[in-house]
């Protein structure tokens, strides 16, 4: 049995199934992070002792700026890998997707140093409401990065066999992974000023 529109686009909607699927999933992710951002604003509005302003002073802005650039670059390499697939250049595809994975790794390593510096200074999630939300938001974002890395690794090594048998389907898969990855980037674009700069 074959599910219709698994690979090709349905004429009247103009989409293949997974494309709508991933967007619906991202819509729910928007609401997930939306709920947490709302919690952030809520707590900040109720913060009479000023832990938010003083807390964000303690974060390392240069490191986070570097990380922002890393993540933006990984987004570009992600889309370039999809472009390479479209052009049928498997070698370039692997190179770009590999760099995405590598950059994601760099992001996590930097984050690890940030976290351990905080722990070193005795700052934990229960230190203040600001650090509670800081660790929760960045932690959840890191879980998303990790999940993305697992999927990217899968398509880089074992999953790329599909390119030989069903090239169009594989290209679609890379496009959906890309959409997820850009979303993770998008979340960070908002997390960065909200946590580090304000």
């Amino acid at each position, binding site marked *: *049995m074959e599910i219709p*529109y698994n690979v090709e686009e349905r004429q009247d909607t103009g989409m293949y199934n997974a494309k709508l*699927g991933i967007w619906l999933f991202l819509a729910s992710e928007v609401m*997930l992070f939306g*709920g947490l951002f709302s919690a952030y604003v809520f707590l900040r509005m109720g913060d009479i002792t000023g832990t938010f302003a003083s807390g964000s002073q303690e974060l390392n802005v240069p490191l986070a700026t570097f990380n922002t650039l890393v993540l933006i670059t990984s987004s570009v390499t992600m889309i370039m890998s999809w472009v390479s697939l479209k052009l049928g250049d498997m070698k370039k595809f692997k190179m770009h997707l590999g760099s995405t994975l590598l950059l994601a790794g760099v992001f996590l390593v930097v984050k690890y140093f940030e976290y351990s510096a905080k722990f070193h200074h005795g700052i934990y999630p229960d230190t203040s*409401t600001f650090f*509670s939300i800081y660790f*929760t938001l960045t932690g*959840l974002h890191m879980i998303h990065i990790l999940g993305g890395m697992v999927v990217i690794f899968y398509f880089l090594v074992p999953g790329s066999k599909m390119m030989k048998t069903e090239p169009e389907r594989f290209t679609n898969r890379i496009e959906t992974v890309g959409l997820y990855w850009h979303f993770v980037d998008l979340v960070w674009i908002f997390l960065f000023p909200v946590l580090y700069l304000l």
Partner: protein
Amino acid sequence: MSGHTDTYHEEPFWRKYIFSIDHKVIGIQYGITALVFLLFGFTLMMLMRWQLAYPEQPMPWFGWLFGEEGVMLPEVYNSLGAMHGTIMIFLGVVPLAVGAFGNYFVPLQIGAPDMAFPKLNMSSYWCYLAGGIVMMVGFFVPGGAANSGWTSYPPLSDIATTGQTVWLFGMVLLITSSLLGSVNTITTIVQLRAKGLTWMRLPFFVWTQFITGFLLLLAFPPLEAAGVLQLMDRLAGTSFFLPSGLVVSGELLDVSGGGSPLLWQHLFWFLAHPEVYVLILPAMGIVGEILANNTRKPLWGYKSIVYASSFLGFMSFVVWAHHMFMTGMGSTISAFFQTTTMIISIPSVVILTAMFISLWGGSIRYNTAMLFALGFLPMFGIGGLTGLPLGIAASDIHLHDTYYVIGHFHYVVAPGTIFALFAGIYYWFPKMTGKVLNERLGKIHFWTSMIFINGIFMPMFIQGLAGVSRRLWDGGISYAHATDTFYLNEMMSTSAWLLGLAQIPFIINLIMSLKSGEKANDNHWEATTLEWTDAPSPPLPHRNFEIIPEVHRGPYEYSVPGSDKGFIPQSEA
């Protein structure tokens, strides 16, 4: 799946019945699991009703569950209450309405060979089962299962026993399951409609599943966010929901503070109000199908009810704070939510009215499915109308947290949604199994359930108006307000136990009919929709239809003048 198109291979047992990716098997898995959980959740309530009717008397037969004395402790009562709510909503009704019926009949009614993502579908069921099992584990951890109510309000839930942590993990799994499920349902409906099946030709049931999908998709994540925050509070010692200077049992709680219990309530009700419509919309869909089929008439005002239910779904996102009138909200915000609440009652009334008008002039077939569907209409009417005083801030201040609230939402969910689900089981059982459920047992099931369920919930309005709080574990014995209405407790409890007995004919019916029931033909009810007209009973494994049908007309062409059968199937050219 690629490689063997159109051929069907016999699969090994575990692939066919356990880790199946066939939407029909998954639907039945959902159905059976959900029915077991429904029965279990109901059992918890039957235990609680003993305590309410005969406070502090040892329970016969089941007393050993509560230690040597056989008397239910307040903590246990709280645990049972919290778990009853959680199980009935998240493990019973929603999986049955969306997971079972949605999964099984949406692809069939739109003429699709399966759901859009079969493997995702399987993982969504297994996530649900895992969530259910984790919830059950809660009963065996020190301190018992979660005992802060199904709403898990902090700060109580933040400082509650381990059961609460287990509850949160269970919820995360259940939320994941319904997210996967809703992505699948929406994609299936948008992408896999058969040729010619335009939006306004969709059976009403498919519409309700579509809207429900969006509610699950967009309302659940904020609760997941809140759940993550509460987990952080419980495990990492944060204080998202704990204000500074909180005193517990005379001692200042050692936390950083600065949080707010209100934050939880907002995030929780942002989910939980749409959740109400998750419970009711599929029920309306089922009832719509059955009404049209058994009145042998088109559903009256099909377009209006489709628009009304879409509007209902949309509005359900902007009414949540009417659950929070007592939290110190000012009059401006109260007025806003009071207004949106009054507005949302309009589409509900449109749908209910259209369904009542559908009955007009029909030559009604009173089979069991139809009886349950007809029972749904006034029961949901009572549930809906008694909600109005709760939506108005002034009267809510009196009624809040009383048995009136319990009566109100149980009328919506129990004789409302659950009756509709029973109707669905009687209506679709022939399609799912190829056997017809016994009508006589079915009618016994309906009439006894109908009488006893009203015996439980109608007195709650009286108690609630008298001001009896819903949280009293001793049934109001220590509560001066309650003395006048105290005698009702025994009546309600007896009704609850009799309602439990009334389910026995249903269970017997399911088993007996499956084994030796009357054989159903492919279109047992002479219906017009694709699952009846174009698929055998039961439908073919993995592909449903021999030939994927094409659709040429709307869903309810009954009693069409000039047609020889009296109805025209959707797929007839």
